[in-house]
């Protein structure tokens, strides 16, 4: 069974096609770097895979759950890392982890310890990317969705997300290839 499946999924906004018809199959414990036509399409495909944007036509399934019908079940399976840098909303990393733990109903103290251990393994990664990445992995998702990640962080991503299937979106074929190559080297 595919963990992530796009079946003729398309997204249109105001008569404009943001994401052209897409078909994707991703199995458990595998990685896929998906190239899109531009940054907006990459962001939208990432959000579709995370279950926060529904396709206007076609279907997206995450572990056979349809985000249109079972959004909460989908969100329990997916960890999503947006492209935007983390704004300084939280005074400290602990505060940020506690916030995420509350939203995912995770035990607070245990989650903070786990988050610190994950962060320690992300040596050299900028906190704007490291914090959301750790945050996304706190609920131990089966699928990690990354919106336009940098290829330079491929090794660190794999080091802490080895148990997940990794789906990343990229704004060009070249970026996707670079990320896929970097993942292949470190896997």
């Amino acid at each position: 069974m595919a963990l992530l499946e796009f079946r003729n999924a398309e997204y249109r906004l105001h008569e404009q096609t943001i994401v052209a018809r897409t078909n994707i199959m991703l199995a458990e414990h595998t990685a896929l770097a998906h190239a899109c036509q531009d940054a907006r399409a990459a962001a939208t495909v990432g959000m579709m895979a995370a279950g926060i944007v529904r396709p206007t036509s076609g279907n997206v399934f995450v572990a056979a759950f349809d985000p249109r019908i079972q959004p909460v079940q989908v969100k329990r399976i997916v960890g999503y890392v947006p492209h935007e840098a983390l704004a300084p909303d939280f005074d400290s990393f602990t505060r940020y982890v506690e916030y995420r733990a509350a939203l995912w109903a995770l035990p607070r103290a245990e989650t903070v310890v786990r988050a610190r251990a994950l962060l320690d393994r992300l040596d050299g990664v900028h906190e704007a990317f490291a914090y959301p990445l750790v945050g996304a992995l706190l609920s131990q998702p089966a699928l990690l969705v990354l919106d336009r990640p940098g290829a330079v962080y491929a090794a660190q991503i794999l080091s802490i997300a080895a148990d997940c299937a990794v789906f990343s979106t990229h704004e060009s074929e070249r970026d996707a290839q670079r990320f896929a190559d970097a993942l292949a080297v470190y896997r």
Partner: protein
Amino acid sequence: MRGQASLAIILARLRRERRVALVAMAGCGLVAYFQRLNDEPARLAAALVFGALTAIVIALLQRGSGRFRELELTELTAPLYGRELARATAAVPCLLLTAAMFAYWTVASVYRTPSLSQVAVAAFSSYAAALVAMCATVRRGIPRTLYIVLACAVAGAAFAIAQNDSALALLFCTICGFTALRQYGEALARYDPV
């Protein structure tokens, strides 16, 4: 709704809105000072108009403005239903409005003690306006404009009703607020943050 999740959402957003709270409180306090010599209906009208405007501005800042983009994305990826998220995010403008209304009536009471019904009508109409304006944040184009106009109209209608019966005005605001909150929850469940 998990209380822990709503509390986390409310606190995270309030932390970001500290300056907005101060500006709203200062603005409402200033309006109350300018209104110190006016009669009761004029003071109530000022509280309703300024409260509604503050409510609309604060509500519109909550979603789609880009100020809370990271929080929005985190909330939307969390395993929460639309109605749960709606209740938590709607509590934020209501809490900020409580602070702004508190500033207004504190300044107003220095010059003349307000009646409890006036305070309640002003607060409830502001909450209703905020909840109606929250519906505008998840819509685009004409529906968005209509919701903003409707939020303004709630305050006007509440004032007109309060001239005859304050209890009826409170009931009107409660019904408007409750309906708007349900609408907001349903719209949020279908909301695409593209």
